[in-house]
């Protein structure tokens, strides 16, 4: 996969957009490698009967690291859905935290293993996902942004969603409200051309989701989500716009879903061989690897080092998590409402 691209001659004249450095790109690529290794492991754990279900981020990695680089995890907010494994890692979650979700282990940090993987909320970064119900996060993200605007905070809210979610009424209502009130939110669509098995042309009569932005008086940008730099630029522009009080943007990142929808799915039922073949060329890992190598940011030995490191991290995390027990049964009974004695409060 990497042999041919590593032959490309080095071109050091890469013009990086504001805020992006060779170091940041390299570190993002490292996270992409980690995400891929973890993703593969999770799939394996499912096949071994250890993980009940998994949705994979394979194909979405460049888009997701670009998103995080374009934002500020110390103050921004991220409403993810199940496919943002790479983004969560890039935001500083650990492979152990992520794996203990898939294996539903004690101490699972997002939801105490009450929820599917990648659902719940994180204590260190403001990343959360309340449910599996596709599209619900869009109005919620708008409300989060509304609160920030009301409180004069300079946070930006990123609402991840898929092409499937774009058909939901909630998507329309959310974008409309954000447009009216010029809210600091970025609607970030990872368009992988499929909602499970339903191809784009059965989901919508238009080619581009971003083109719908005009219905909501906001800018829309469509970008190649396998291009880490172009993605960064588009998202950065949107984030800057939001942060400077100029409202929402709809960004559409065109990516490929390299694996079936989840471990429960078999995409050969509904994807043609041609389609499957075509998508393989759009794997963002070799594409980014080639890009970085071409510009002298990455060399072969660093690349091998990263990949070895990623494997090691994932091995360690697997050992660690597999040794953990399931959450104590009794814990399931608590926390439906605030406990009478204290508990959380805004006050």
């Amino acid at each position, binding site marked *: 996969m990497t042999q041919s691209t590593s032959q490309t001659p080095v071109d050091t004249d890469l013009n990086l957009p504001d805020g992006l450095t060779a170091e940041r790109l390299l570190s993002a690529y490292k996270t992409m490698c980690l995400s891929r290794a973890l993703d593969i492991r999770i799939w394996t754990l499912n096949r071994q009967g250890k993980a009940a279900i998994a949705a994979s981020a394979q194909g979405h990695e460049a888009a997701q690291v670009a998103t995080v680089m374009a934002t500020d995890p110390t103050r921004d907010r991220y409403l993810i859905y199940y496919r943002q494994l790479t983004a969560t890692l890039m935001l500083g979650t650990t492979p152990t935290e992520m794996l203990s979700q898939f294996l539903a282990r004690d101490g699972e940090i997002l*939801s105490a293993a009450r929820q599917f993987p990648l659902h719940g909320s994180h204590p260190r970064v403001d990343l959360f996902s309340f*449910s599996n119900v596709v599209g*619900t996060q869009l*109005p*919620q993200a*708008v409300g*989060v942004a509304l609160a920030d605007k009301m409180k004069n905070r300079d946070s930006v809210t990123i609402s991840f969603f898929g092409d499937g979610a774009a058909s939901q009424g909630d998507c329309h209502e959310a974008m409309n409200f954000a447009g*009216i009130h010029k809210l600091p939110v970025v609607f970030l669509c990872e368009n992988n051309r499929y909602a499970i098995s339903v191809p784009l042309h059965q989901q919508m009569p238009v080619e581009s989701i971003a083109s719908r932005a005009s219905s909501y008086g906001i800018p829309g940008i469509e970008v190649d989500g396998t291009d880490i730099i172009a993605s960064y630029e588009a998202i950065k522009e949107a984030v800057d716009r939001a942060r400077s009080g100029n409202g929402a943007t709809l960004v559409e990142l065109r990516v490929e879903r390299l694996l079936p929808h989840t471990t429960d799915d078999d995409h050969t039922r509904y994807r043609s061989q041609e389609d499957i073949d075509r998508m393989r060329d759009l794997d963002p890992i070799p594409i980014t690897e080639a890009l970085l190598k071409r510009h002298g940011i990455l060399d072969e030995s660093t690349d091998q080092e990263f990949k070895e490191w990623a494997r090691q991290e994932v091995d360690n995390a697997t050992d660690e998590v597999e040794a953990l027990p399931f959450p104590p049964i009794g814990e399931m009974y608590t926390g439906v409402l*605030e406990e009478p004695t204290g508990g959380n409060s*805004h006050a």
Partner: protein
Amino acid sequence: MPEMTLIEAVRETLRSEMRRDPDIFMMGEDIGPRGGVFLASEGFVEEFGEDRVINTPLAESSIIGIALGAAVNGMRPVAEIQFADFVWPAINQLVGEAARVRYGTNGGKFAPMTVRVPYGGGVRGGLYHSQSIEVLFAHTPGLQVIAPATPWDARGLLRSAIRSNDPVVFLEHKRTYRLVRGEAPDDDYTEPIGKADIKRAGSDVSLITYGLMLHHSLQAAEMVSQSDGIETEIVDLRTLRPIDAETILDSVSNTGRALIVQEDTGAVSVSSEVSAIIAAEGFFDLDAPVMRVNPPEIPPMPFSPLQEAEYMPSPEKIADAIRRLAEI
């Protein structure tokens, strides 16, 4: 103390809470210059500004979804659904999402939000301005459901709702808005969520009810007291989730007879649950079957005035049921 109507109690509570806590804001259709279709926020946009009294587009799912997002991010939204009949598009965000935020994040996020829902019939509202919609909410873990019947309770419970750190569905019966008057002072009292209230003492029959039916039941109780000397104890549920089993069972243990009166259709409803509580935990106190007065199993409720009147459990029908039960 001065008397006020129930809608006045709601409005004055919203006003004083908005003054007290700058994190509270309101959103809903027509709540701005129009003051809400029932005038619950009359004069509010003038006092609190457009940022805290948000006229929304006609889109209920987003009203609740946006309120939810704001709630988990430090605000205390009070959302208005204009009529209960229009809450259905918002069910996904309310029952599916808001109710489960605290549990699903293991307390990492929580949603202090109040959803005000004018409901109920007897207002010539026809099939789509008369509905009772409490069943699903009362069924859902993670929600608190309040249905006050007096200005006092509306005031004390709306305060508790707004100050709660978890979602509340606050049901206001439209027919009671201007019909029911009572004391509801401006001092900072609250009524506890989850506690029923004995609105009339009696030793012969326990009548459990809520909302407009409290008032029909109080009338019925006077009728049978005068005509037959039957003394009815009336338990006003006030909160439909959680239901106050203790107060219900206490009353039934004194009377040995239970009648549940409800405006909503009966099948799989709040009256079913109250009956089930008694049948399980009060069984040995019972001297007679647990009876219910529910309207017919047809969509609530015809626009035609005679049919609408026939639909609602009237004081007369309730009185008859009390008499029948007392005789068993």
